[in-house]
């Protein structure tokens, strides 16, 4: 299989879906002429023209509304909210409007919208630019939220999002931007709502998503040398969560660690833990552990960011603590 960088996989997914369906469009800040603030939309404007590929003003509410409204009137738009923090500005149009159109119209309206947004954690982007705020949208019925961890996954999940008839938020880690990996062809579409075991293991299930998967795999590799076999379960989709996948893995390992870059309270770790506490309590041989950012905004300095986000050592310590 061909190898691509993460951003190239995004770019290829959009090129393919634009070519496949005339109704696919892209709007966002710097999305058109500059080819994206981080190059992900390179070549789209030249190839598909200025009607379908467009720079927008810095108006996150209108960008989201543009996407929802266009989707209600026959397009299959992609819109960009540059950083996930700015979902705060778009939330009414996404959660209050877009998520409810199909429901309110009793099925007569559809909102086949894709919202691409980046997470800038790990780049010294500071307190207002590096948030992990998937909870805001994952809590909302009518929306779906995916968070790919590899070039192959971002291609497959972004294509799935574009083809989905519902509003799907796709979160892209800037820290993975130049990570390379094998990428499937035109038909490579990954089912939304299904997790993937990225590494199998019998001792502890480590649930994670996005850029955390790399840290989890690193931890699993190092722990393996100590004789501890960690199963790394990449959720891929944050909403709806893959209950079966989570429960099946816990049924194999009987121990559960969940790791994310968001703050602990009300993060997806809570939801995963609650699902297991409801449905598989007796499977557990140890308390559930969450490894997350602390209850604080993020500082900009490298040492502050390092101390803030869970690292490989934190994951290893959490896993070990369950086997104590």
């Amino acid at each position, binding site marked *: 299989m061909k190898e691509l960088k993460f951003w190239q996989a995004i770019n290829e997914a959009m090129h393919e879906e634009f070519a496949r369906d005339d109704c696919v469009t892209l709007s966002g800040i710097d999305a058109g002429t500059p080819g994206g603030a981080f190059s992900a939309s390179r070549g789209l404007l030249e190839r598909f023209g200025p009607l*379908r590929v467009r720079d927008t*003003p810095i108006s996150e509410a209108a960008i989201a509304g*543009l996407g929802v*409204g266009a*989707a209600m009137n026959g397009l299959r738009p992609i819109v960009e909210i540059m950083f996930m923090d700015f979902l705060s500005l778009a939330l009414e149009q996404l959660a209050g*409007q877009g998520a409810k159109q199909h*429901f309110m*119209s009793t099925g007569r309206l559809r909102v086949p919208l894709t919202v691409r947004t980046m997470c800038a954690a790990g780049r010294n982007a500071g307190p207002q630019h590096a948030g992990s705020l998937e909870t805001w949208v994952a809590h909302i019925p009518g929306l779906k939220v995916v968070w790919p961890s590899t070039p192959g996954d971002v291609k497959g999940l972004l294509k799935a999002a574009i083809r*989905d*008839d519902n509003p799907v938020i796709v979160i892209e880690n800037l820290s993975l931007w130049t990570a390379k990996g094998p990428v499937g062809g035109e038909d490579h579409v990954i089912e939304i709502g299904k997790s993937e075991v990225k590494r199998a293991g019998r001792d502890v299930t480590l649930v994670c998503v996005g850029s955390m998967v790399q840290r989890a795999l690193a931890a699993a590799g190092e722990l393996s040398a100590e004789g501890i076999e960690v199963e790394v379960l990449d959720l891929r989709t944050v909403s709806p969560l893959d209950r079966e996948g989570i429960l099946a893995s816990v049924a194999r390992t009987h121990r559960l660690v969940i790791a994310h870059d968001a703050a602990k309270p009300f993060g997806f770790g809570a939801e995963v833990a609650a699902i297991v506490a409801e449905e598989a309590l007796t499977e557990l041989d140890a308390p559930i552990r969450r490894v997350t950012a602390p209850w604080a905004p993020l500082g900009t300095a490298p040492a502050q960011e390092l101390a803030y986000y869970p690292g490989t050592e934190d994951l290893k310590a959490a896993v070990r603590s369950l086997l104590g």
Partner: protein
Amino acid sequence: MNIGHNAAPTREQLTSLYRTMLLIRRFEEQAVRLVNEQKMPGSTHTCIGQEAIAAGICGALRQGDQVLTTHRPHGHFIAMGVDLKALTAELMLKQTGINRGRCGSMHLVDPDHGILGANGVVGGGVPLAVGAAYAAQVRGSGQVIVTFFGDGASSQGGCHEAMNLASLWKLPVIFVCENNGYAEMTPSTAHISVSNIALRAPGYGMAGVHVDGNDILAISEVAAEAVRRARAGEGPTLIDCETLRMRGHFEGDPERYRPEGQKSEWQARDPIARLAAVLSKRFDVPADELEAIDRAATGAVADAARLADADPAATGRDILDFVYAGEAA
């Protein structure tokens, strides 16, 4: 019906507008009664006194055009030709309502009649309208999109963002402000910093018009020109329609905030009476023809209510349907 830019409106055109306005008026009067009889739960916002705006603007549209409206949507729905019975049934939260009782008055939506939705969120529909207009532009569908919003809604950030974007991209959208003097209990002078919202149009490089919202002739002319511009790719128009909400914000509002004499002063500007006068004086429409239109309107809304009343209330059985498209309903 489309009153041409310069062409004087015909007797037929004006009679048709009169019919629409009366239908709205009688529908709303009946809604007031039904609310009082506790047959319409939730909050109901009527548009009595504002009928000319709905009739005039929607009257300038053609099949395929789309409208987004507000929490005060009945007039727009009627002007777009929705089924009166299904509309009434929805307001009565019946299983047979347009939206199966899910939406009630405030969240109504009927895409089959070109209405992409009322809105429970003030200003919520304005960015959506710009999106729908963008789709029209990309698809070359020739559609014009209208978004109604209140004076209160003009203070929403989303309206500003949407107007800037629509003007930049020359989208086929018309922004219609129903400037009816109040947002809930607060007079416009206390919540908007200009006397009419059309004064904001130059700040978006956009065409702006201020019009007497109780003058159907004026509105129709302004609407026709805005539709022409939109369809010709000349971009959006911002229309401020000066009017007065003649009833409470919602049915039950004690209206303590009204200055004395305000309503009777505006009674003299009643849009329906004014059009009746034009029809009889300028077009010699006989009084009994006007009365027949009124009787028909009264009958139509009463029939709708009688039928809707007999329908079963919405149940809790299907509340999980249509959460996601593409799933079994």
